[in-house]
C-alpha cells in the first residue's frame, strides 16, 4: 500500500539532467570551458502508484473575503475544475463529498497535508480568490501530497464575470504541465438549436427556426450566433475559432454564410443563387479554404474555394449525389459521402481531385476526420432502425462502434485533442448533443433545451 516513494518524482529530474549532459558540447581544444548549463526548469509531477492514475483532490478555492459573490466564485472554480480534470480521465479524481471533514486552511500555502494523505491524495490543488471591484485575482497551487512539494503554481487576474474560464484555464495548464496533454476545457462547440421555439415566417410549412449557437465544451455558457429567424444548419468553426461557417436559408435558398463572431460581420463567400445553392461548408485545417457542396453544375458535387470566395474548384464529377466534405488534418485529402454505388458511403479524394477511393462499404454518412496523430474517420452508420456512431481507423482499416442503438446517433465531431467526440442522440427523448470518449466510454449529455443538432468542436 505505501509504495509511493520519492523515486517516481525523481525520474523527471534525473532524466533532465541526463539530457543536459548529453547536450553538453565537447570542448574543441584550448582550455575554454563550456558555459555552465542548467536545466531551465526542474519538473515535479504528480504520480500515483505504479500502473494507476494519480489521485487528485480539488477542494473549493478559498475566498479571501467573506462576501457572497467571492464565495460563489471560489466554489464554482473548485467544482468546474474538478469536472474539467475528470473529463480527460488522466487522474483519479477523489469525489468532493469526501472532503467534508478536512477544514479549509486560512492560506493556500499550508494545507493539512497529513489529512489529504490519509484520504489517499497524490496531488492536491489549492486555490484562492480575491475580489476587488469587478476584477478577481485567482491563485492556484498544485501540491504533490506525499512529499509536500509544490509542483505547479499560477496566478490569474481578470474579470469577475465568468468564473468558469479560470477553472478551464487551470485545467488545461495542469494537463499540459503534468500529463503533457492538450486539454479541451477552453474549447467550444457550435451547433444548431430550435430552443427559441420561433416559427419560420413566410413559408408554407410550419417549421421551427433553427439558429446557430455556441457553448463551452461542457455545455455551459451557450450563446446564439445567428438571428435570421430562418433555418440554419451544419455550423463549423474556422481553425482560429473566430468565424463560423454554416448553411442558411436566410435568402430563401441554401447558401454558405460565414459569421465572424467577434467582429459581428457576416458574408456569403460562395455567392449562391436559387439555381446555384451552396451548403455544408467545412474549413480546411489552415483556414484558407472552404470545402462545400453545391448544385451549381446540375447535381450536388464537392467544391473547394478560398475563404474569401475566390478560386472555386470542383473536386468531384459524378451524376449521383456527393455531399458533406471533411478535410484530412494535413489538408491534402477530403472525405465525403457519395451515393455513386447505390447506398450512401464514404469516399476519399485528394485535394487536387485525384485519387478517389471508397472506404466504407455500408450505409454511412457525415464523416469527420480526426485530428493528427489519430488517423481516423468518425461517421454515422445505419445499424437498424436508427444510426450509430462508428470510427474507422484508416491505417488498420478496423472499424469500431461507439454507440449501440440507444436512440439514433448522428453527426460525430472530433475534439481537437482526438480523445472525445460530440454527436447528437435521441436517447433521452428529443435530439440532444452528447459527448463520448474515443473508446465509447464517458457519455455525457450537454444540452437539454429544445432540439440541438450538428455539433462541431472548435480547435
Amino acid at each position: 500500500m505505501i509504495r509511493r516513494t520519492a523515486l517516481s518524482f525523481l525520474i523527471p529530474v534525473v532524466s533532465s539532467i541526463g539530457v543536459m549532459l548529453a547536450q553538453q558540447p565537447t570542448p574543441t581544444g584550448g582550455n575554454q570551458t563550456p558555459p555552465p548549463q542548467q536545466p531551465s526548469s526542474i519538473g515535479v509531477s504528480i504520480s500515483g502508484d505504479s500502473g494507476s492514475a494519480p489521485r487528485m483532490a480539488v477542494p473549493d478555492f478559498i475566498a479571501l473575503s467573506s462576501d457572497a459573490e467571492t464565495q460563489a466564485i471560489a466554489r464554482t472554480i473548485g467544482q468546474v475544475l474538478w469536472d474539467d480534470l475528470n473529463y480527460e480521465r488522466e487522474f483519479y479524481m477523489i469525489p468532493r463529498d469526501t472532503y467534508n471533514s478536512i477544514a479549509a486552511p486560512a492560506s493556500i500555502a499550508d494545507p493539512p497535508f497529513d489529512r489529504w494523505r490519509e484520504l489517499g491524495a497524490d496531488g492536491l490543488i489549492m486555490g484562492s480568490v480575491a475580489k476587488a471591484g469587478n476584477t478577481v485575482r485567482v491563485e492556484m497551487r498544485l501540491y504533490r501530497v506525499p512529499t509536500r512539494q509544490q509542483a505547479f503554481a499560477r496566478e490569474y487576474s481578470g474579470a469577475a464575470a465568468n468564473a468558469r474560464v479560470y477553472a478551464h484555464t487551470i485545467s488545461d495548464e495542469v494537463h499540459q504541465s503534468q500529463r503533457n496533454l492538450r486539454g479541451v476545457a477552453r474549447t467550444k462547440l457550435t451547433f444548431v438549436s430550435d430552443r427559441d421555439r420561433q416559427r419560420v415566417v413566410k413559408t408554407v410549412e410550419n417549421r421551427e427556426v433553427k439558429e446557430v449557437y455556441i457553448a463551452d465544451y461542457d455545455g455551459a455558457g451557450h450563446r446564439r450566433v445567428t438571428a435570421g429567424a430562418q433555418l440554419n444548419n451544419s455550423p463549423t468553426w474556422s481553425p482560429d475559432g473566430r468565424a463560423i461557417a454554416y448553411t442558411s436559408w436566410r435568402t430563401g435558398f441554401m447558401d454558405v454564410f460565414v459569421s465572424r463572431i467577434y467582429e459581428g460581420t457576416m458574408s456569403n463567400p460562395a455567392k449562391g443563387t436559387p439555381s446555384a445553392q451552396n451548403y455544408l461548408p467545412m474549413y480546411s485545417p489552415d483556414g484558407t479554404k472552404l470545402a462545400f457542396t453545391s448544385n451549381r453544375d446540375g447535381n450536388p458535387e464537392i467544391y473547394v474555394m478560398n475563404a474569401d470566395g475566390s478560386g472555386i474548384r470542383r473536386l468531384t464529377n459524378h451524376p449521383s449525389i456527393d455531399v458533406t466534405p471533411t478535410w484530412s488534418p494535413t489538408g491534402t485529402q477530403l472525405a465525403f459521402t457519395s451515393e455513386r454505388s447505390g447506398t450512401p458511403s464514404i469516399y476519399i479524394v485528394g485535394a487536387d481531385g485525384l485519387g478517389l477511393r471508397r472506404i466504407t462499404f455500408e450505409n454511412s454518412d457525415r464523416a469527420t476526420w480526426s485530428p493528427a496523430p489519430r488517423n481516423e474517420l468518425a461517421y454515422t452508420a445505419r445499424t437498424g432502425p436508427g444510426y450509430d456512431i462508428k470510427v474507422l481507423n484508416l491505417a488498420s482499416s478496423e472499424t469500431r462502434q461507439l454507440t449501440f442503438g440507444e436512440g439514433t446517433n448522428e453527426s460525430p465531431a472530433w475534439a481537437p485533442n482526438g480523445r472525445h467526440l460530440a454527436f447528437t442522440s435521441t436517447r433521452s427523448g428529443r435530439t440532444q448533443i452528447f459527448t463520448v470518449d474515443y473508446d465509447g466510454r464517458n457519455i455525457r449529455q450537454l444540452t437539454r433545451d429544445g432540439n440541438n443538432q450538428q455539433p462541431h468542436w472548435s480547435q
Partner: protein
Amino acid sequence: MPKVMAMPDGPSRGRRGRRVSTTLAEINVVPMVDVMLVLLIIFMVAAPLLQRGVEVNLPVARQTQKMSEERVYITVPLSYQKDSRVFLDEEAVSLDFLAERIRQAMISKDQKEVFLRPDGGVRMQEVLDVMDRLKEGGIERVGIVALQRAPR
C-alpha cells in the same frame, strides 16, 4: 447514464485457489445476518492458516508481475474507540475516509474483498460501523480474521 459498452478489464484471472477454512466456531451470527446479509458476505478465517505456508525456493524470472490478488487487511485496534482510526494495511485511516480509500484500493482488484482484523476488545457496534464504510466503498466480501483456538 446506462453503460454502453462492456469493457472487460483484461483477461479475467482465474479465481485464486484459496480454500476458505471456515472454522465452525459456534458464534451466533443470526442478529448480524439479519442486518447485513443483504449487504455483505461475511466469512471467518483462521489467522495462522493465512500466514503459514510451505517454504519453497521460487524460481527467478525478470518479467514477473505483482500478484494482483493482494489481500487487503483492515485492522480495528483498541485505540479505535478513542480516535476512530482503523489501519488499512499499515496506514492509519480515519473512519471518514475509509470508504474512499477502499474505493481507491479496489479499483484494480477483481475480488472486492477485505480481511477485517478487529481487536477482541472492540465493540460489535464499532465493527459494524467499519463494515458500513467497507460496504460504501464497494466491498462485497469481508473475512473476519481470528486466531484459531489451540486444541485442548
